[in-house]
């Protein structure tokens, strides 16, 4: 229950997420998802407009310029996993930091 074993757990979990995104995602179904299926069947799929970030180098879970579709999907997944990890961990650390700043020694002034 030490800090080190917690770090090991986080690294193991992150490795699992990277494997899911790099390897298992290759076997994902490309059929429309539940909402897309309903939109097609009920005739409102055509109301979807083009995506504002369709020009992103990672749009639609592929890395633009990478010809091999396997590698393109896998790399996009790895980048997404690392980005989500960093942003979510960063956000929570930032929340923690702003709460800690009034110092552990002095009580937080009443607002």
């Amino acid at each position, binding site marked *: 229950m030490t800090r080190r074993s917690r770090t090991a757990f986080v690294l193991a979990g992150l490795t699992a997420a990277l494997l899911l995104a790099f390897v298992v995602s290759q076997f994902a179904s490309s059929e429309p998802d*539940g909402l897309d299926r309903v939109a097609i069947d009920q005739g409102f799929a055509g109301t979807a407009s083009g995506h504002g970030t369709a020009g992103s180098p990672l749009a639609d879970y592929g890395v633009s310029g990478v010809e091999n579709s396997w590698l393109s999907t896998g790399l996009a997944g790895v980048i997404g996993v690392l980005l989500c990890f960093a942003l979510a961990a960063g956000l929570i650390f930032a929340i923690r930091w702003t709460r800690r700043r009034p110092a552990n020694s002095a009580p937080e002034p009443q607002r």
Partner: protein
Amino acid sequence: MHIPDGFIDAPTSIVGGIVAVGLIAVSIKKAGDTLDDRQLPLAGLVAAFIFAMQMINFPVAGGTSGHLLGGCLAAVLVGPWVGSLAMTVVFIVQALVFADGGLTALGLNIILMGYTTCFVGYGLFVLLRKILPRNKSGVSVAAALAAWCGVVAASLVFTFYYAVGGTGGASVGTVAVAMIGVHMLIGIGEAVITGLTVGAVLATRPDLVHGARDLRPVLVTDGQAGR
């Protein structure tokens, strides 16, 4: 279940955006009030895992697929406030970087797939834990059942969006029936993944599962002994 731009009209999307900002602000405040130091890096791990799992569409009946939404899973692992923030990060990254889920629909998507599954799922999880055996299996089963309900609840929330601001002129009744029907199937996948993942974490580091805090041995609870 990512809503693209255009399915829901602009006024509804704007209201959705404002509501989502409000919910995120509440989550930030509440997460700060309840932060448990041991869970700091876990928020990143939860977001990373849910992003990866959302890439993996599994087939359901009739040329249709589904993927994990994950709010119930996130809430059981790190609590609903931190969990909802991790979910929000995933949807922002998907919309801005991967062009998945419309930009104008981002707020709607955060409420639909993040907050709905997180809070409906966690609320039911807490109720189910009172009924089910007070052990690790009970926690996993409660998480799985609550996750199924969270997905079906999200299909109801989409139907509500469509009733308020849907485009394309489909009948709200038939949209409701179709959405609920297909998500009752997708929810089975959500339940299986949620139950197995919670089970796997409980098997390795039960002390890191927010929803199983009451199963921690009394001597290692930190500041929770008075509960």
